[in-house]
């Protein structure tokens, strides 16, 4: 499984709808300081269920919506969609009931996950464009290493702190990989 495409609409500094089509292998995101690279990383963690505003460098969850600049006004909504592609050999080993949503999705060769938030604070999750709950998304990725707390997504400036995590935290990493 891998990410085929990231689509950002009004997320942080991405005022205009933006699509980033990724390759398998090694994708490098580059650009000057402050241009929006870590905002893309935040978008990926957000759509996969990140609940901590602190880890999104925000004060409230609505701060992820484009807040305007010197020439344009703030937007009223932010939305991020990740499109995943699954080849046979690497499909998600989904936890949970055989006939649950997560298991059905895991058998598809492609699926999308979407998260949307409005200025009102109302937030929606979608799997393949149909409404879902946060729980459905976390079930989908449970134990795969890419949930918000997992070892496979390292925020800027935190790499050297990993080795100083408390023993209980390191245990969580091992459990996630079990």
């Amino acid at each position, binding site marked *: 499984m891998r990410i085929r495409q990231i689509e950002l609409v009004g997320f942080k500094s991405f005022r205009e709808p933006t699509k980033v089509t990724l390759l398998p292998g*090694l994708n*490098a995101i580059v650009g000057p300081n402050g241009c929006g690279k*870590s905002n*893309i*990383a935040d978008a990926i963690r957000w759509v996969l269920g990140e609940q901590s505003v602190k880890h999104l460098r925000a004060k409230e969850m609505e701060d992820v919506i484009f807040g305007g600049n010197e020439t344009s006004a703030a937007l009223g909504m932010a939305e991020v969609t990740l499109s995943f592609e699954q080849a046979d050999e690497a499909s998600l080993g989904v936890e949970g009931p055989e006939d649950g949503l997560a298991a059905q999705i895991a058998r598809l060769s492609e699926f999308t996950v979407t998260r949307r938030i409005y200025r009102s604070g109302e937030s929606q999750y979608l799997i393949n464009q149909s409404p879902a709950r946060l729980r459905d998304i976390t079930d989908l990725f449970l134990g795969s290493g890419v949930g918000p707390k997992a070892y*496979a997504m*390292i925020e*800027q400036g935190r790499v050297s702190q990993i080795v100083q995590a408390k023993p209980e935290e390191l245990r969580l990493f091992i459990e996630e990989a079990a």
Partner: protein
Amino acid sequence: TRARFKETFEKADVKFRELFVELFHGGRATLKLTNPNNLLESGVEIEAQPPGKRVGSLGVLSGGERALTAVSLIMALFSLRTTPFCLLDEVDAPLDDANVARFNAMLRRISERTQFIIITHKQRTMETADALYGVTMAEAGVSQMVSVRIGGAREEALAATA
């Protein structure tokens, strides 16, 4: 789940030792259980000893040594199961040129099986990527993607995003 945790822990330890030695060109590292008699609750600790140095607490490691140790652990956990992708935001910032090269060689190898999305300012890391995605703020405060070509053209394209 006790047996499962123990089995995963042991596999992670074996892999961690191997990748640590690969990145540091020697030395030794291991994962330890804080309370081996209670597998359900025991914490996990890292012990790392760069080549030729004494074993110390992790606090003694330098900024670059810590980053490399963390990368060895992340990649070890990676190899235990198929992980959909890995997202690394400037993990190569504390590394010197020699260690950036070692890190990149490991990335190249592991990215044959797993997708990586890596944010970097290091030229060398850009050069080993399969694809580069430039981000720019042509209009202040508004991000947009710009295509970046590898090779000579990269200098000019990157300058355009600077």
